[in-house]
């Protein structure tokens, strides 16, 4: 009982002291004492405040890290998007350059025996078969494509239209064994037939003996036979096979067109091959 009384007395005593302090403090009477106490507490407050600032910095840094991470992800997404856009633009630029080359090829070759438009066709896929060297293009009968039409790029001859669908066609490449192209060596003016070989570079056969064929000479279409217009570059001689006892000599050619990396080709639509040429693989153009 006395303990409760003691506690109560303590409470009321301290409350009275607190009230007195409150009144005096509110009246400004305790300002000197408060100032003195604050001066004593100042170093501790400064020290703790410094710790608080450091901790706050740590938390702020952690928060900044989180926001930076989010920002980095956002920027990374932007970079990815821009990279894709950049690649698309570069692709378009390359495509544009290639198309310009194709157009320039047309303008630079006005002496060809054909007139009218040449169709720029996109290569759809490389040949699906190991046994037939073909490519597909996104032009077909709807675009006026017909079998036998020559297919070229700005670098030279690619082949000829083999099969025609409504909206796509197959191009038989000059490297296919069934392909035969009447050719002419540009320097020595020797004629021959360029034949494809499976898994190897094409050869120019049936070159008459006499004039020596030299490496580096360029083979072009001769226009004989009516399968191709003349003066289209086929390839360059890289090896000569000449034996005195044989009736003809031959040469290995490297096609001027990189047939493995075709993207755009031109189909010469106004060239009419001679009848029977395209449908007969064994025929020689």
């Amino acid at each position: 009982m006395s303990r409760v009384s003691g506690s109560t007395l303590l409470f009321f005593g301290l409350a009275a002291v607190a009230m007195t302090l409150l009144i005096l403090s509110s009246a400004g009477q305790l300002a000197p004492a408060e100032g003195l106490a604050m001066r004593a507490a100042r170093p501790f407050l400064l020290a703790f405040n410094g710790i608080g600032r450091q901790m706050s910095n740590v938390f702020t840094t952690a928060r900044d890290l989180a926001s930076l991470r989010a920002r980095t992800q956002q920027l990374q997404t932007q970079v990815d998007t821009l990279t894709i856009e950049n690649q698309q633009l570069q692709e378009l630029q390359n495509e544009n350059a290639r198309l310009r080359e194709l157009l320039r090829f047309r303008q630079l070759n006005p002496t060809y025996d054909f007139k009218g438009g040449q169709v720029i066709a996109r290569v759809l896929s490389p040949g699906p078969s190991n046994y037939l060297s073909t490519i597909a293009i996104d032009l077909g009968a709807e675009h006026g494509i017909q079998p036998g039409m020559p297919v070229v790029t700005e670098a030279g001859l690619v082949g000829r239209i083999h099969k025609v669908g409504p909206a796509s066609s197959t191009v038989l490449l000059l490297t296919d064994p069934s392909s035969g192209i009447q050719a002419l060596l540009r320097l020595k003016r020797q004629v021959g037939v360029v034949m494809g070989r499976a898994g190897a570079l094409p050869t120019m056969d049936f070159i008459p003996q006499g004039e020596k064929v030299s490496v580096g000479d360029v083979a072009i279409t001769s226009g004989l036979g009516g399968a191709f217009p003349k003066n289209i570059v086929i390839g360059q001689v890289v090896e000569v096979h000449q034996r005195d006892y044989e009736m003809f000599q031959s040469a290995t050619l490297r096609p001027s067109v990189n047939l493995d990396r075709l993207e755009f080709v031109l189909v010469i639509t106004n060239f009419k091959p001679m009848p029977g040429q395209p449908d007969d693989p064994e025929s020689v153009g």
Partner: protein
Amino acid sequence: MARRAGRPRFPSPATSRERTGVYPALIVLGLTVLIQATLSARLRFFGASPNLLLAIVVSWSMLRGFSQGILWGFIGGLGIDLVSGMPLGASSLALMSVCTLAGLGKSSVFAANVLLPMSIVALATPIHGWIILLTLQIQPALAGPGGVSVNWLDSTARIIAPELALNVLTIALLYPLLRRLSAALNAGRAE
């Protein structure tokens, strides 16, 4: 020699008891005031920061009884008033008042459960806040004519409510620590 033998070689039990109670109180309260004035003021939750001193005084009242609670409340209140610029004695009055509530928890069978101090501090926070608001409202009247207008509803919603949530969390962390300190003091006293 006989006179020397009659002189105590160690402090009397009463002196030891006082020291074991006062020194930790001063250290704990001093640190609490400094931490509250500097560190916890940076922990803002919806505009309020946790009231460490309130949580500690409530906890100590529950652990050590009403008398020690009001002593801690009085000393701690003076300290916090000094560093916070409040009129001296305002926080002491508020803290001592909530000790009445907290002292009741000491005899409860749930005193060992941390949920009880959490509940008591949830009740004590608005009481403490309203006493402070009342003090602020009457302070100019104590000093002279006039008075300031205190928006009780706004202050309750914007300050006391978030502080209540923080204090509940704070006491959940502090109460076990203070219980260990109290047990350590009891052990020291027993020796």
